[in-house]
């Protein structure tokens, strides 16, 4: 076969030109991905973006149409799932309903013909880590959703695998449990230090858990970077809109001024953007979108509203969330949302000033959606 990837020793999983298609429908398009040892990688995207397909290809549950999968430097493209050194946790837990927790966890070991003493030790260790000891003799039916998911993790844990694969493991749980188990998974990763690949459509899970996030769309990776980079410097409008809740404001504007002192014109008013770190330049006069997160905009009241670079806006709606308040404003004809401290009381109809923090903003080409 072809050359194995460079620096294979420090890489845990690497994917070369992986493609998957069903007839004319291309789910994955010639994908390359390198995951270093011990990394927590999150594949993030809406349903149908190919993230689960990618995970299934890594697990060996799906045969790729093209390309190779390497785990620990070994080409496992044609290997059986059980021979790849992976453990997988599914959204629906996929516990064997007729077996007790103990037998669920030990099933894979029994299949491999391991001796009983060793099986017992491993199950004991895993159940200690996951606090499952009191539940070992129960059937899955008698467990809560969170406990079931812990058993599913335990099933991967006992097999002492190199790579953990999570396929939306928290999506079937209610919000409170999801937050709890999220922390547990992060703790587990810190403790074990295994490579973990985690598929989700939930951007909060992605932000909180990941060392790196791969934002996917239409079978390709849009951006692969650490969470803060993805959050603060999204590579295109799609990534910017997908990450962050409430989502980023996109304000239609035109690029003005000169190359040296560029400005952005929003509904006839000019905003100096010479502080902005441009990634690429569009011709002066072209249509752009000015992206600003709700927490990166200041609201000014009183005499400050007349200062330079401050836009006039009208409060339309107020959403108090306890920890902070989301204020919806009308800026010209465009609607934007701003996050303010909950101590600030706003009334619908009030005129306020809006000041954008240009350094933290993101500018996108209106046509291509690429970051400027």
């Amino acid at each position, binding site marked *: 076969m072809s050359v194995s990837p460079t620096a294979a020793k420090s890489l845990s999983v690497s994917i070369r030109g992986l493609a998957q298609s069903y007839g004319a429908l291309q789910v994955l398009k010639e994908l390359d991905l390198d995951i270093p040892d011990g990394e927590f990688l999150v594949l993030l995207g809406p349903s149908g973006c190919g993230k689960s397909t990618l995970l*299934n290809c890594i*697990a060996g*549950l799906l045969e790729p149409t093209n390309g190779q999968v390497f785990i620990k430097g070994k080409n496992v493209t044609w290997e*059986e*799932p*059980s*021979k790849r050194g*992976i*453990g*997988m946790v*599914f*959204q*629906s837990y*996929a*516990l*064997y*309903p*007729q077996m007790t927790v103990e037998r669920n966890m030990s*099933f*894979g070991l029994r*299949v*491999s013909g391991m001796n009983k003493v060793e099986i017992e030790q491993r199950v004991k260790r895993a159940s200690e880590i996951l606090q499952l000891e009191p539940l070992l003799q129960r059937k899955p039916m008698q467990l809560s959703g969170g406990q079931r998911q812990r058993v*599913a993790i335990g*099933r991967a844990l006992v*097999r002492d695998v190199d790579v953990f694969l999570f*396929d939306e493991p928290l999506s079937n749980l209610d919000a409170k449990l999801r937050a709890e188990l999220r922390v547990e998974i992060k703790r587990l990763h810190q403790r074990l230090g295994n490579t973990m690949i985690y598929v989700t459509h939930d951007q909060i899970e992605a932000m909180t858990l990941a060392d790196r996030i791969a934002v996917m769309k239409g079978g390709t990776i849009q951006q692969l970077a650490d969470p803060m980079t993805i959050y603060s410097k999204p590579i295109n409008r799609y990534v910017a809109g997908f990450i962050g809740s409430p989502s980023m404001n996109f304000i239609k504007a035109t690029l003005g001024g000169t190359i040296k002192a560029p400005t952005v014109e929003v509904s006839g008013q000019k905003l100096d953007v010479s502080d902005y770190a441009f990634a690429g330049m569009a011709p002066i006069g072209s249509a752009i979108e000015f992206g600003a997160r709700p927490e990166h905009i200041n609201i000014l009241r009183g005499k400050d509203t007349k200062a330079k670079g401050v836009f006039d806006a009208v409060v339309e709606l107020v959403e108090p969330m306890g920890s902070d308040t989301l204020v919806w404003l009308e800026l010209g004809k465009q609607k934007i949302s701003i996050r303010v401290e909950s101590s600030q009381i706003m009334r619908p109809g009030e005129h306020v000033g809006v000041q954008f923090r240009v350094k933290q903003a993101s500018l996108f080409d209106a046509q291509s959606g690429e970051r400027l």
Partner: protein
Amino acid sequence: MSNIVSNPIIPSGPKPKKFITTERAVVYSVLCICAAFFLFPLYIMVITSLKDLDGIRYGNIFVPTLHPSLGAWNKALFHACTGLYCQGILPGFWNSCKITGPSVIVSIAVASVTGYSLANWPFKFSEGFFTVLLVSSFIPYVVMLYPLVLITRWLGIYSTLPAVILVHTIFGLPILTLLFRNYFSSLPQELFKAARVDGAGYWRIFFQVFAPMSIPIFTVAVILQVTGIWNDFLFGVIYAGPTNYPMTVQLNNIVNSMEGVKEYNVDMAATILTGIVPLSIYFFSGKYFVRGIAAGAVKG
């Protein structure tokens, strides 16, 4: 004014219901009529089988006898004549057992594994194979009777027990495979994937993961096959051969044997004896049957 206010009912808690509504009355009366329609013949059969011939001749058909006896049952079981032999219907009972047992076991074993393969291990033409199977389950039996006679003769088993077992097994396969395939498809796919990640292979997944979850559908299959094969007349009379005639064929011979007097009480007893196996199967496993059918229906 005052007479309206005198006894005010303030709505609170559950709304009072009428003892019986018109809808209920209609439903119950229809159900009672249906039940009577099916139970009445059974009643006639039971009371007639307990009468002696004089009681039948001179008594009213609807009135039970004052001197019930099991003589007719005894004769039906051990002495009634089927053609030349007068051993009762008991040999037929054993023949039916010998035919039904292996047919049920083999057909369910083959169909469950086939259904599992079609649902979880798709091969190149599995969809086409399934379509053929589906279509073939709607072909009328009579079309295949004579070709099967030739085939079993060619195999050298015509007119023997293996022939009739083979035919029952083959004819049970399409519908059973359909049943099992749909049931296995309705089981979560992730369970299958999890077992594969755990290293389980084709047979281990079937026996240790899927089969224990499939008790309802196995129950349905057993009921369908036992009642279907036990009640069969046609295949038994064609392929089994006279020494292996199943109970249904023996019953027909008893009822149609003419030797002077028509012994209605013996005929009735023999008929009840023949019907008792499927009847008791439904009686004892009806709960599981309904549950199994429902489980399949809800999950698609």
